[in-house]
Protein backbone atom coordinates (compact mmCIF):
# COMPACT_ATOMS: atom_id res chain seq x y z
CA UNK A 1 0.00 0.00 0.00
CA UNK A 2 1.49 3.32 -1.07
CA UNK A 3 2.13 5.94 1.61
CA UNK A 4 0.02 9.11 1.66
CA UNK A 5 1.97 12.17 0.52
CA UNK A 6 1.53 15.24 2.71
CA UNK A 7 0.30 18.09 0.51
CA UNK A 8 -0.43 21.71 1.38
CA UNK A 9 -3.55 23.44 0.13
CA UNK A 10 -1.29 25.53 -2.09
CA UNK A 11 2.00 24.13 -3.35
CA UNK A 12 4.59 25.96 -5.44
CA UNK A 13 5.30 23.48 -8.22
CA UNK A 14 6.73 23.74 -11.68
CA UNK A 15 4.92 21.94 -14.49
CA UNK A 16 7.20 18.91 -14.23
CA UNK A 17 6.49 18.43 -10.52
CA UNK A 18 2.79 18.98 -11.16
CA UNK A 19 2.73 16.24 -13.83
CA UNK A 20 4.83 13.89 -11.67
CA UNK A 21 2.47 14.33 -8.71
CA UNK A 22 -0.54 13.58 -10.93
CA UNK A 23 1.15 10.37 -12.17
CA UNK A 24 1.84 9.42 -8.54
CA UNK A 25 -1.76 10.00 -7.49
CA UNK A 26 -3.02 8.03 -10.50
CA UNK A 27 -1.08 5.05 -9.07
CA UNK A 28 0.29 3.99 -12.44
CA UNK A 29 1.25 0.30 -12.59
CA UNK A 30 4.13 0.67 -15.02
CA UNK A 31 6.20 3.73 -15.96
CA UNK A 32 8.80 2.85 -18.60
CA UNK A 33 11.00 5.86 -19.20
CA UNK A 34 14.09 7.27 -20.85
CA UNK A 35 14.51 10.83 -19.52
CA UNK A 36 15.12 13.81 -21.79
CA UNK A 37 15.32 17.56 -21.17
CA UNK A 38 13.05 19.37 -20.31
CA UNK A 39 10.75 16.53 -19.18
CA UNK A 40 13.46 14.71 -17.19
CA UNK A 41 12.17 15.85 -13.75
CA UNK A 42 8.77 14.20 -14.37
CA UNK A 43 10.23 10.69 -14.36
CA UNK A 44 13.00 11.66 -11.94
CA UNK A 45 10.44 12.87 -9.38
CA UNK A 46 8.25 9.86 -10.07
CA UNK A 47 11.08 7.39 -9.47
CA UNK A 48 11.88 9.24 -6.23
CA UNK A 49 8.24 8.89 -5.12
CA UNK A 50 8.44 5.19 -5.91
CA UNK A 51 11.73 4.75 -4.03
CA UNK A 52 10.22 6.57 -1.03
CA UNK A 53 7.19 4.27 -0.94
CA UNK A 54 4.57 6.64 -2.36
CA UNK A 55 3.82 4.48 -5.39
CA UNK A 56 2.83 0.81 -5.75
CA UNK A 57 4.09 0.11 -9.22
CA UNK A 58 7.08 -0.60 -11.40
CA UNK A 59 9.52 1.85 -12.91
CA UNK A 60 11.47 0.50 -15.84
CA UNK A 61 14.54 2.36 -17.08
CA UNK A 62 14.89 1.49 -20.74
CA UNK A 63 17.55 2.28 -23.34
CA UNK A 64 15.62 4.67 -25.59
CA UNK A 65 12.30 6.45 -25.99
CA UNK A 66 11.30 3.90 -28.62
CA UNK A 67 11.67 1.29 -25.89
CA UNK A 68 9.95 3.51 -23.32
CA UNK A 69 6.78 3.66 -25.39
CA UNK A 70 7.18 -0.02 -26.36
CA UNK A 71 7.35 -0.85 -22.64
CA UNK A 72 4.16 1.13 -22.06
CA UNK A 73 2.47 -0.67 -24.97
CA UNK A 74 3.46 -4.07 -23.57
CA UNK A 75 2.36 -3.18 -20.04
CA UNK A 76 -0.92 -1.73 -21.25
CA UNK A 77 -1.66 -4.74 -23.48
CA UNK A 78 -0.86 -6.98 -20.52
CA UNK A 79 -3.62 -5.21 -18.56
CA UNK A 80 -1.80 -2.51 -16.59
CA UNK A 81 -2.14 1.28 -16.30
CA UNK A 82 0.95 2.69 -18.07
CA UNK A 83 2.40 6.17 -18.50
CA UNK A 84 5.61 7.98 -19.39
CA UNK A 85 7.01 11.40 -20.25
CA UNK A 86 9.12 12.76 -23.06
CA UNK A 87 10.13 15.76 -25.20
CA UNK A 88 11.52 16.64 -28.61
CA UNK A 89 14.00 14.08 -29.99
CA UNK A 90 12.66 11.51 -27.56
CA UNK A 91 9.16 12.15 -28.81
CA UNK A 92 10.43 11.86 -32.39
CA UNK A 93 11.95 8.47 -31.61
CA UNK A 94 8.64 7.36 -30.04
CA UNK A 95 6.55 8.26 -33.07
CA UNK A 96 6.49 4.78 -34.60
CA UNK A 97 5.20 3.33 -31.34
CA UNK A 98 2.69 6.15 -30.79
CA UNK A 99 0.78 4.85 -33.78
CA UNK A 100 0.99 1.28 -32.40
CA UNK A 101 -0.44 2.42 -29.07
CA UNK A 102 -3.45 4.16 -30.59
CA UNK A 103 -4.01 1.42 -33.19
CA UNK A 104 -4.05 -1.21 -30.43
CA UNK A 105 -6.44 1.00 -28.44
CA UNK A 106 -4.18 1.13 -25.38
CA UNK A 107 -5.06 4.01 -22.98
CA UNK A 108 -1.48 5.02 -22.16
CA UNK A 109 -0.88 8.54 -20.79
CA UNK A 110 2.09 10.48 -22.19
CA UNK A 111 3.07 13.78 -20.58
CA UNK A 112 4.83 15.80 -23.26
CA UNK A 113 7.00 18.76 -22.33
CA UNK A 114 7.14 20.56 -25.65
CA UNK A 115 10.59 21.32 -27.04
CA UNK A 116 12.13 22.20 -30.40
CA UNK A 117 13.32 19.52 -32.80
CA UNK A 118 16.94 19.50 -34.06
CA UNK A 119 18.81 20.55 -36.13
CA UNK A 120 20.10 22.91 -34.82
CA UNK A 121 20.08 21.19 -31.41
CA UNK A 122 18.00 23.14 -28.91
CA UNK A 123 16.63 22.13 -25.50
CA UNK A 124 14.12 25.00 -25.28
CA UNK A 125 10.44 25.11 -25.92
CA UNK A 126 8.36 25.19 -29.07
CA UNK A 127 5.56 23.03 -30.42
CA UNK A 128 7.45 21.04 -33.11
CA UNK A 129 7.07 17.79 -31.18
CA UNK A 130 3.36 18.38 -30.53
CA UNK A 131 2.79 18.96 -34.25
CA UNK A 132 4.85 15.89 -35.15
CA UNK A 133 2.46 13.66 -33.22
CA UNK A 134 -0.83 15.31 -34.02
CA UNK A 135 -1.98 12.65 -36.55
CA UNK A 136 -0.95 9.70 -34.35
CA UNK A 137 -4.52 8.99 -33.25
CA UNK A 138 -4.05 10.10 -29.64
CA UNK A 139 -6.28 12.43 -27.67
CA UNK A 140 -4.24 15.62 -27.16
CA UNK A 141 -4.88 17.91 -24.16
CA UNK A 142 -3.11 21.26 -23.83
CA UNK A 143 -2.11 23.08 -20.64
CA UNK A 144 -0.96 26.67 -20.24
CA UNK A 145 0.41 26.53 -16.67
CA UNK A 146 1.47 24.00 -13.99
CA UNK A 147 -1.99 23.82 -12.38
CA UNK A 148 -3.50 22.76 -15.68
CA UNK A 149 -0.66 20.28 -16.35
CA UNK A 150 -1.62 18.66 -13.04
CA UNK A 151 -5.39 18.75 -13.62
CA UNK A 152 -5.25 17.50 -17.21
CA UNK A 153 -2.84 14.66 -16.38
CA UNK A 154 -5.31 13.35 -13.79
CA UNK A 155 -8.19 13.72 -16.25
CA UNK A 156 -6.18 12.04 -19.05
CA UNK A 157 -6.40 8.63 -17.34
CA UNK A 158 -10.13 8.92 -16.79
CA UNK A 159 -10.75 9.96 -20.40
CA UNK A 160 -8.48 7.47 -22.17
CA UNK A 161 -9.46 4.48 -20.02
CA UNK A 162 -13.21 5.02 -20.39
CA UNK A 163 -14.74 1.94 -22.01
CA UNK A 164 -16.26 4.12 -24.74
CA UNK A 165 -12.85 5.62 -25.58
CA UNK A 166 -9.89 3.27 -24.94
CA UNK A 167 -7.38 5.54 -26.62
CA UNK A 168 -4.03 6.91 -25.48
CA UNK A 169 -3.85 10.52 -24.26
CA UNK A 170 -1.07 13.12 -24.43
CA UNK A 171 -0.94 16.09 -22.08
CA UNK A 172 1.18 18.93 -23.43
CA UNK A 173 2.97 21.68 -21.52
CA UNK A 174 5.53 24.24 -22.67
CA UNK A 175 9.19 23.39 -22.09
CA UNK A 176 10.73 25.65 -19.41
CA UNK A 177 8.00 28.33 -19.57
CA UNK A 178 5.72 25.82 -17.82
CA UNK A 179 7.88 22.78 -17.02
CA UNK A 180 10.53 24.78 -15.12
CA UNK A 181 8.40 27.70 -13.90
CA UNK A 182 7.20 27.23 -10.33
CA UNK A 183 3.75 28.67 -9.69
CA UNK A 184 0.89 28.26 -7.23
CA UNK A 185 -0.78 24.87 -7.66
CA UNK A 186 -3.77 23.61 -5.66
CA UNK A 187 -3.44 19.83 -5.62
CA UNK A 188 -6.12 17.35 -4.60
CA UNK A 189 -5.43 15.23 -1.57
CA UNK A 190 -4.20 11.74 -2.52
CA UNK A 191 -7.39 9.84 -1.68
CA UNK A 192 -9.55 12.37 -3.57
CA UNK A 193 -7.36 12.31 -6.68
CA UNK A 194 -7.00 8.53 -6.70
CA UNK A 195 -10.76 8.09 -6.32
CA UNK A 196 -11.38 10.57 -9.15
CA UNK A 197 -9.07 8.69 -11.53
CA UNK A 198 -10.63 5.38 -10.46
CA UNK A 199 -9.53 1.75 -10.70
CA UNK A 200 -7.93 0.66 -13.94
CA UNK A 201 -10.27 -1.52 -16.03
CA UNK A 202 -8.30 -3.96 -18.21
CA UNK A 203 -9.78 -4.76 -21.63
CA UNK A 204 -8.54 -7.72 -23.69
CA UNK A 205 -5.71 -8.18 -21.23
CA UNK A 206 -2.95 -10.47 -22.50
CA UNK A 207 -2.39 -11.75 -18.97
CA UNK A 208 -5.98 -12.97 -18.82
CA UNK A 209 -5.05 -16.50 -19.94
CA UNK A 210 -8.63 -17.73 -19.82
CA UNK A 211 -9.44 -15.36 -22.70
CA UNK A 212 -6.50 -15.53 -25.09
CA UNK A 213 -6.14 -12.46 -27.34
CA UNK A 214 -3.55 -11.01 -29.65
CA UNK A 215 -2.70 -7.33 -30.16
CA UNK A 216 -1.25 -5.53 -33.15
CA UNK A 217 -1.91 -8.20 -35.74
CA UNK A 218 -1.39 -7.94 -39.49
CA UNK A 219 -4.59 -7.09 -41.41
CA UNK A 220 -3.63 -5.89 -44.91
CA UNK A 221 -6.35 -4.68 -47.24
CA UNK A 222 -8.93 -7.00 -45.74
CA UNK A 223 -9.44 -5.22 -42.39
CA UNK A 224 -6.96 -2.35 -42.03
CA UNK A 225 -9.35 0.30 -43.30
CA UNK A 226 -12.18 -0.82 -41.01
CA UNK A 227 -9.84 -0.75 -38.02
CA UNK A 228 -8.58 2.75 -38.80
CA UNK A 229 -12.13 4.00 -39.54
CA UNK A 230 -13.38 2.69 -36.21
CA UNK A 231 -10.40 4.20 -34.44
CA UNK A 232 -11.13 7.59 -36.01
CA UNK A 233 -14.83 7.24 -35.23
CA UNK A 234 -14.12 6.54 -31.55
CA UNK A 235 -11.59 9.40 -31.37
CA UNK A 236 -14.17 11.79 -32.85
CA UNK A 237 -16.82 10.51 -30.43
CA UNK A 238 -14.50 10.72 -27.41
CA UNK A 239 -15.74 14.31 -27.05
CA UNK A 240 -18.74 13.02 -25.06
CA UNK A 241 -16.48 11.41 -22.49
CA UNK A 242 -14.07 14.35 -22.44
CA UNK A 243 -17.01 16.67 -21.73
CA UNK A 244 -18.28 14.43 -18.96
CA UNK A 245 -14.85 14.17 -17.31
CA UNK A 246 -14.41 17.97 -17.51
CA UNK A 247 -17.78 18.32 -15.76
CA UNK A 248 -16.92 15.80 -13.06
CA UNK A 249 -13.63 17.59 -12.46
CA UNK A 250 -15.41 20.92 -12.15
CA UNK A 251 -17.84 19.45 -9.61
CA UNK A 252 -14.87 18.19 -7.61
CA UNK A 253 -12.56 21.21 -7.77
CA UNK A 254 -14.48 24.20 -9.15
CA UNK A 255 -11.89 24.40 -11.94
CA UNK A 256 -13.55 24.64 -15.32
CA UNK A 257 -12.29 23.15 -18.58
CA UNK A 258 -13.85 23.20 -22.03
CA UNK A 259 -12.81 22.12 -25.55
CA UNK A 260 -12.01 25.68 -26.51
CA UNK A 261 -10.59 28.26 -24.09
CA UNK A 262 -11.93 31.79 -24.54
CA UNK A 263 -10.92 35.06 -22.90
CA UNK A 264 -13.10 38.15 -23.32
CA UNK A 265 -14.53 36.87 -26.62
CA UNK A 266 -18.17 37.89 -26.02
CA UNK A 267 -17.70 41.36 -27.52
CA UNK A 268 -14.26 40.97 -29.17
CA UNK A 269 -13.57 42.39 -32.65
CA UNK A 270 -10.08 40.92 -32.90
CA UNK A 271 -8.49 37.81 -31.39
CA UNK A 272 -5.22 36.00 -30.94
CA UNK A 273 -5.32 32.22 -31.27
CA UNK A 274 -2.36 30.40 -29.72
CA UNK A 275 -1.37 27.36 -27.64
CA UNK A 276 0.61 26.92 -24.42
CA UNK A 277 1.84 29.64 -22.09
CA UNK A 278 1.34 32.25 -24.84
CA UNK A 279 -2.43 31.89 -24.27
CA UNK A 280 -1.93 33.49 -20.85
CA UNK A 281 0.55 36.17 -21.96
CA UNK A 282 -1.90 37.12 -24.73
CA UNK A 283 -4.52 37.88 -22.06
CA UNK A 284 -2.18 40.47 -20.55
CA UNK A 285 -1.80 42.01 -24.03
CA UNK A 286 -5.60 41.85 -24.64
CA UNK A 287 -6.22 43.78 -21.41
CA UNK A 288 -3.73 46.44 -22.52
CA UNK A 289 -5.64 46.81 -25.81
CA UNK A 290 -8.93 47.08 -23.95
CA UNK A 291 -7.52 49.98 -21.89
CA UNK A 292 -7.30 51.78 -25.24
CA UNK A 293 -10.86 50.80 -26.13
CA UNK A 294 -9.85 48.09 -28.61
CA UNK A 295 -11.96 44.99 -28.08
CA UNK A 296 -9.36 42.22 -28.04
CA UNK A 297 -9.83 38.58 -27.04
CA UNK A 298 -7.92 35.31 -26.86
CA UNK A 299 -8.91 31.82 -28.05
CA UNK A 300 -7.10 28.54 -27.58
CA UNK A 301 -7.66 24.81 -27.80
CA UNK A 302 -7.83 22.78 -24.63
CA UNK A 303 -8.32 19.71 -26.80
CA UNK A 304 -6.12 19.67 -29.91
CA UNK A 305 -7.37 16.18 -30.89
CA UNK A 306 -10.19 15.47 -31.38
CA UNK A 307 -10.21 18.92 -33.01
CA UNK A 308 -13.23 20.85 -31.63
CA UNK A 309 -14.40 22.02 -35.04
CA UNK A 310 -17.83 23.38 -34.05
CA UNK A 311 -16.61 25.02 -30.83
CA UNK A 312 -13.91 26.82 -32.84
CA UNK A 313 -16.54 28.04 -35.31
CA UNK A 314 -18.66 29.35 -32.41
CA UNK A 315 -15.69 31.03 -30.73
CA UNK A 316 -14.96 33.14 -33.80
CA UNK A 317 -18.54 33.71 -34.92
CA UNK A 318 -18.46 37.52 -34.58
CA UNK A 319 -14.78 38.23 -35.04
CA UNK A 320 -13.38 40.64 -37.66
CA UNK A 321 -9.70 39.68 -37.63
CA UNK A 322 -7.81 36.72 -36.15
CA UNK A 323 -4.09 36.07 -35.64
CA UNK A 324 -3.39 32.35 -35.65
CA UNK A 325 -0.02 31.78 -33.98
CA UNK A 326 1.95 28.63 -34.77
CA UNK A 327 4.98 27.81 -32.62
CA UNK A 328 6.48 25.29 -35.02
CA UNK A 329 8.49 25.73 -38.21
CA UNK A 330 5.83 25.38 -40.92
CA UNK A 331 8.11 23.51 -43.34
CA UNK A 332 6.97 25.00 -46.61
CA UNK A 333 3.35 25.95 -45.98
CA UNK A 334 1.20 27.81 -43.46
CA UNK A 335 1.18 26.84 -39.81
CA UNK A 336 -1.00 23.80 -39.13
CA UNK A 337 -3.31 25.70 -36.79
CA UNK A 338 -3.78 28.45 -39.38
CA UNK A 339 -4.95 25.82 -41.87
CA UNK A 340 -7.31 24.19 -39.39
CA UNK A 341 -8.85 27.46 -38.18
CA UNK A 342 -9.20 28.70 -41.75
CA UNK A 343 -10.99 25.47 -42.74
CA UNK A 344 -13.36 25.80 -39.78
CA UNK A 345 -14.19 29.39 -40.74
CA UNK A 346 -14.72 28.52 -44.40
CA UNK A 347 -17.05 25.64 -43.51
CA UNK A 348 -19.01 27.97 -41.23
CA UNK A 349 -19.42 30.44 -44.10
CA UNK A 350 -17.45 33.08 -42.19
CA UNK A 351 -14.65 35.12 -43.64
CA UNK A 352 -12.79 37.06 -40.98
CA UNK A 353 -9.32 38.30 -41.89
CA UNK A 354 -6.96 35.52 -40.76
CA UNK A 355 -3.23 36.10 -40.42
CA UNK A 356 -0.60 33.48 -39.60
CA UNK A 357 2.25 34.32 -37.20
CA UNK A 358 5.21 31.99 -36.68
CA UNK A 359 6.76 32.69 -33.28
CA UNK A 360 8.89 31.46 -30.37
CA UNK A 361 10.89 28.79 -32.21
CA UNK A 362 13.59 27.19 -30.06
CA UNK A 363 12.51 29.13 -26.98
CA UNK A 364 12.70 32.64 -28.50
CA UNK A 365 10.96 34.96 -26.03
CA UNK A 366 7.48 36.11 -27.00
CA UNK A 367 6.97 39.37 -25.15
CA UNK A 368 3.82 41.25 -24.27
CA UNK A 369 5.08 43.89 -26.72
CA UNK A 370 5.12 41.34 -29.57
CA UNK A 371 1.55 40.37 -28.75
CA UNK A 372 0.43 44.00 -28.57
CA UNK A 373 2.02 44.56 -32.01
CA UNK A 374 -0.01 41.65 -33.39
CA UNK A 375 -3.22 43.12 -31.95
CA UNK A 376 -2.37 46.49 -33.53
CA UNK A 377 -2.02 44.86 -36.94
CA UNK A 378 -5.34 43.06 -36.44
CA UNK A 379 -7.01 46.27 -35.31
CA UNK A 380 -5.77 48.07 -38.42
CA UNK A 381 -7.13 45.25 -40.64
CA UNK A 382 -10.45 45.12 -38.76
CA UNK A 383 -10.96 48.89 -39.05
CA UNK A 384 -10.03 48.96 -42.74
CA UNK A 385 -12.14 45.88 -43.46
CA UNK A 386 -9.30 44.38 -45.47
CA UNK A 387 -5.99 42.60 -45.01
CA UNK A 388 -3.15 45.10 -44.58
CA UNK A 389 -0.33 42.66 -43.78
CA UNK A 390 1.19 39.53 -45.35
CA UNK A 391 -0.66 36.29 -44.67
CA UNK A 392 2.33 34.73 -42.94
CA UNK A 393 4.79 36.69 -40.79
CA UNK A 394 7.65 35.65 -38.52
CA UNK A 395 7.71 37.61 -35.24
CA UNK A 396 10.61 38.05 -32.80
CA UNK A 397 13.04 37.10 -35.57
CA UNK A 398 16.33 39.01 -35.90
CA UNK A 399 17.45 40.37 -39.22
CA UNK A 400 15.26 41.44 -42.15
CA UNK A 401 11.53 40.94 -41.74
CA UNK A 402 10.39 37.58 -43.12
CA UNK A 403 6.91 37.19 -44.55
CA UNK A 404 5.03 35.37 -47.32
CA UNK A 405 1.98 36.10 -49.46
Amino acid at each position, binding site marked *: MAKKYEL*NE*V*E*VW*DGNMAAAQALRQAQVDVVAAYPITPSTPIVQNYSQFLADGYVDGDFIMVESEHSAMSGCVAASAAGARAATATSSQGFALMVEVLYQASGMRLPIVLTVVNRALAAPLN*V*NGDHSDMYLGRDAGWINLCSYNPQEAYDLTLMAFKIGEDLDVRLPVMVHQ*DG*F*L*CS*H*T*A*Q*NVRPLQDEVATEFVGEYKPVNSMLDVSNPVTHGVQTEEDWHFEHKARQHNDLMNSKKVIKRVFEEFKDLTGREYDFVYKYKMDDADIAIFALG*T*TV*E*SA*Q*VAADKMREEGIKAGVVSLRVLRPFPFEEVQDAFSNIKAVAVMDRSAPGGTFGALFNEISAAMLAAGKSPIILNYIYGLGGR*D*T*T*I*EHLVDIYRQLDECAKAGERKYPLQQFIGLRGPKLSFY
Partner: protein
Amino acid sequence: MLEIRWHSRAGQGAVTGAKGLADVVANTGKFVQAFAFYGSAKRGAAMTAYNRVDDKPILNHEKFMRPDYVLVIDPGLTYTADITANEKEDTKYIITTHLSKEELINAQPKLKGKEVYVVDCMQISLDTIGRAIPNTPMLGALMKVSGMFDLDYFQNAMKKVLSKFPQKIIDANMAAIERAYNEVK
Protein backbone atom coordinates in the same frame (compact mmCIF):
# COMPACT_ATOMS: atom_id res chain seq x y z
CA MET B 1 3.46 43.08 -9.66
CA LEU B 2 6.85 42.80 -7.97
CA GLU B 3 9.66 41.49 -10.18
CA ILE B 4 13.07 40.22 -9.10
CA ARG B 5 16.09 39.14 -11.14
CA TRP B 6 18.88 37.06 -9.64
CA HIS B 7 22.41 37.02 -11.07
CA SER B 8 24.27 33.90 -10.05
CA ARG B 9 26.61 31.19 -11.16
CA ALA B 10 25.07 27.78 -11.79
CA GLY B 11 25.49 25.86 -8.53
CA GLN B 12 25.28 28.84 -6.15
CA GLY B 13 21.61 28.26 -5.43
CA ALA B 14 19.80 31.09 -7.24
CA VAL B 15 17.09 28.69 -8.47
CA THR B 16 16.66 27.23 -4.99
CA GLY B 17 16.62 30.77 -3.58
CA ALA B 18 14.01 31.93 -6.07
CA LYS B 19 11.85 28.85 -5.42
CA GLY B 20 12.28 29.20 -1.65
CA LEU B 21 11.14 32.81 -1.83
CA ALA B 22 8.18 31.78 -3.99
CA ASP B 23 7.22 29.11 -1.42
CA VAL B 24 7.26 31.61 1.44
CA VAL B 25 5.31 34.24 -0.51
CA ALA B 26 2.71 31.72 -1.76
CA ASN B 27 1.94 30.79 1.86
CA THR B 28 0.72 34.34 2.45
CA GLY B 29 -1.96 33.94 -0.25
CA LYS B 30 -0.10 35.81 -2.97
CA PHE B 31 0.63 34.46 -6.44
CA VAL B 32 4.17 33.66 -7.51
CA GLN B 33 6.40 32.61 -10.35
CA ALA B 34 9.98 31.36 -10.05
CA PHE B 35 12.00 30.45 -13.12
CA ALA B 36 15.50 30.49 -14.55
CA PHE B 37 17.35 30.41 -17.83
CA TYR B 38 19.56 27.38 -18.06
CA GLY B 39 20.46 26.79 -21.68
CA SER B 40 23.11 24.12 -21.46
CA ALA B 41 24.87 26.00 -18.64
CA LYS B 42 27.46 24.08 -16.68
CA ARG B 43 28.30 24.56 -13.01
CA GLY B 44 30.00 27.94 -12.64
CA ALA B 45 28.46 29.52 -15.74
CA ALA B 46 26.75 32.89 -15.29
CA MET B 47 22.97 32.53 -15.18
CA THR B 48 19.85 34.43 -14.20
CA ALA B 49 16.81 33.41 -12.17
CA TYR B 50 13.56 35.32 -11.73
CA ASN B 51 10.64 35.87 -9.37
CA ARG B 52 7.28 37.49 -9.99
CA VAL B 53 4.89 38.23 -7.11
CA ASP B 54 1.35 39.59 -7.44
CA ASP B 55 -2.00 39.76 -5.65
CA LYS B 56 -3.72 38.09 -8.61
CA PRO B 57 -2.83 35.04 -10.76
CA ILE B 58 0.27 35.72 -12.87
CA LEU B 59 -0.47 35.26 -16.57
CA ASN B 60 2.65 36.88 -17.97
CA HIS B 61 5.04 34.23 -19.31
CA GLU B 62 7.46 36.49 -21.16
CA LYS B 63 11.08 36.08 -20.17
CA PHE B 64 11.60 39.83 -20.58
CA MET B 65 11.54 41.65 -17.24
CA ARG B 66 12.03 45.16 -15.87
CA PRO B 67 13.10 44.18 -12.37
CA ASP B 68 12.18 46.02 -9.16
CA TYR B 69 15.09 44.25 -7.45
CA VAL B 70 18.34 42.91 -8.86
CA LEU B 71 20.06 40.40 -6.56
CA VAL B 72 23.70 39.64 -7.37
CA ILE B 73 24.91 36.63 -5.39
CA ASP B 74 28.31 36.19 -7.03
CA PRO B 75 30.73 39.13 -6.52
CA GLY B 76 32.39 38.77 -9.94
CA LEU B 77 29.14 39.12 -11.88
CA THR B 78 28.90 42.79 -10.88
CA TYR B 79 31.69 43.32 -13.39
CA THR B 80 31.10 40.64 -16.02
CA ALA B 81 27.30 40.33 -16.29
CA ASP B 82 24.90 43.01 -17.54
CA ILE B 83 23.31 43.49 -14.11
CA THR B 84 21.65 46.80 -15.05
CA ALA B 85 19.90 45.35 -18.15
CA ASN B 86 16.29 46.57 -18.59
CA GLU B 87 16.42 48.46 -15.29
CA LYS B 88 13.75 50.88 -14.13
CA GLU B 89 14.42 54.30 -12.64
CA ASP B 90 13.88 52.92 -9.15
CA THR B 91 15.40 49.44 -9.51
CA LYS B 92 17.13 48.46 -6.28
CA TYR B 93 20.39 46.51 -6.34
CA ILE B 94 21.51 44.16 -3.57
CA ILE B 95 25.02 43.05 -4.32
CA THR B 96 27.27 40.45 -2.73
CA THR B 97 30.69 42.02 -2.12
CA HIS B 98 33.37 42.40 0.53
CA LEU B 99 33.71 46.06 -0.53
CA SER B 100 31.93 49.04 1.02
CA LYS B 101 29.21 50.64 -1.07
CA GLU B 102 31.55 53.52 -2.08
CA GLU B 103 34.36 51.15 -3.07
CA LEU B 104 31.92 49.04 -5.09
CA ILE B 105 30.50 52.02 -6.99
CA ASN B 106 34.04 53.24 -7.73
CA ALA B 107 34.91 49.79 -9.04
CA GLN B 108 31.72 49.54 -11.12
CA PRO B 109 30.79 53.11 -12.10
CA LYS B 110 27.57 52.12 -13.86
CA LEU B 111 26.01 51.67 -10.41
CA LYS B 112 26.52 55.37 -9.70
CA GLY B 113 23.31 57.19 -8.81
CA LYS B 114 21.38 53.96 -8.29
CA GLU B 115 19.88 52.57 -5.11
CA VAL B 116 22.59 50.10 -4.16
CA TYR B 117 22.85 47.89 -1.07
CA VAL B 118 25.86 45.74 -0.23
CA VAL B 119 26.18 42.59 1.84
CA ASP B 120 28.90 39.93 1.91
CA CYS B 121 26.77 36.83 1.31
CA MET B 122 29.88 34.78 0.44
CA GLN B 123 31.60 35.40 3.79
CA ILE B 124 28.33 35.02 5.68
CA SER B 125 27.55 31.65 4.09
CA LEU B 126 31.14 30.46 4.63
CA ASP B 127 30.96 31.47 8.32
CA THR B 128 27.52 30.03 9.03
CA ILE B 129 26.85 27.20 6.55
CA GLY B 130 30.50 26.37 5.92
CA ARG B 131 30.09 26.53 2.13
CA ALA B 132 29.83 29.33 -0.42
CA ILE B 133 26.05 29.04 -0.90
CA PRO B 134 25.05 32.70 -0.90
CA ASN B 135 21.32 32.25 -1.65
CA THR B 136 19.71 32.19 1.80
CA PRO B 137 21.72 35.15 3.14
CA MET B 138 20.65 37.13 0.05
CA LEU B 139 17.03 36.42 0.99
CA GLY B 140 17.73 37.81 4.49
CA ALA B 141 19.13 40.98 2.92
CA LEU B 142 16.13 41.23 0.59
CA MET B 143 13.73 41.04 3.55
CA LYS B 144 15.52 43.95 5.24
CA VAL B 145 15.71 46.15 2.13
CA SER B 146 12.20 45.40 0.81
CA GLY B 147 10.40 45.09 4.13
CA MET B 148 8.48 42.20 2.52
CA PHE B 149 8.33 40.19 5.77
CA ASP B 150 9.81 40.79 9.20
CA LEU B 151 12.78 38.65 10.17
CA ASP B 152 10.95 36.27 12.56
CA TYR B 153 8.15 35.53 10.14
CA PHE B 154 10.56 34.93 7.28
CA GLN B 155 12.84 32.66 9.31
CA ASN B 156 9.90 30.54 10.44
CA ALA B 157 8.59 30.27 6.90
CA MET B 158 12.04 29.29 5.59
CA LYS B 159 12.31 26.59 8.27
CA LYS B 160 9.30 24.94 6.63
CA VAL B 161 10.82 25.26 3.16
CA LEU B 162 14.08 23.70 4.39
CA SER B 163 12.36 21.02 6.49
CA LYS B 164 13.80 18.10 4.51
CA PHE B 165 17.33 19.10 5.59
CA PRO B 166 19.05 18.08 8.87
CA GLN B 167 18.51 20.45 11.83
CA LYS B 168 22.16 21.56 11.72
CA ILE B 169 21.75 22.88 8.18
CA ILE B 170 18.45 24.57 8.99
CA ASP B 171 20.06 26.32 12.00
CA ALA B 172 23.04 27.44 9.88
CA ASN B 173 20.70 28.90 7.27
CA MET B 174 18.71 30.74 9.94
CA ALA B 175 21.97 32.26 11.24
CA ALA B 176 22.94 33.24 7.69
CA ILE B 177 19.60 34.92 7.05
CA GLU B 178 19.78 36.84 10.32
CA ARG B 179 23.35 38.03 9.77
CA ALA B 180 22.63 39.25 6.25
CA TYR B 181 19.43 40.93 7.47
CA ASN B 182 21.46 42.84 10.05
CA GLU B 183 24.54 43.52 7.93
CA VAL B 184 23.08 44.71 4.62
CA LYS B 185 23.85 48.41 4.08
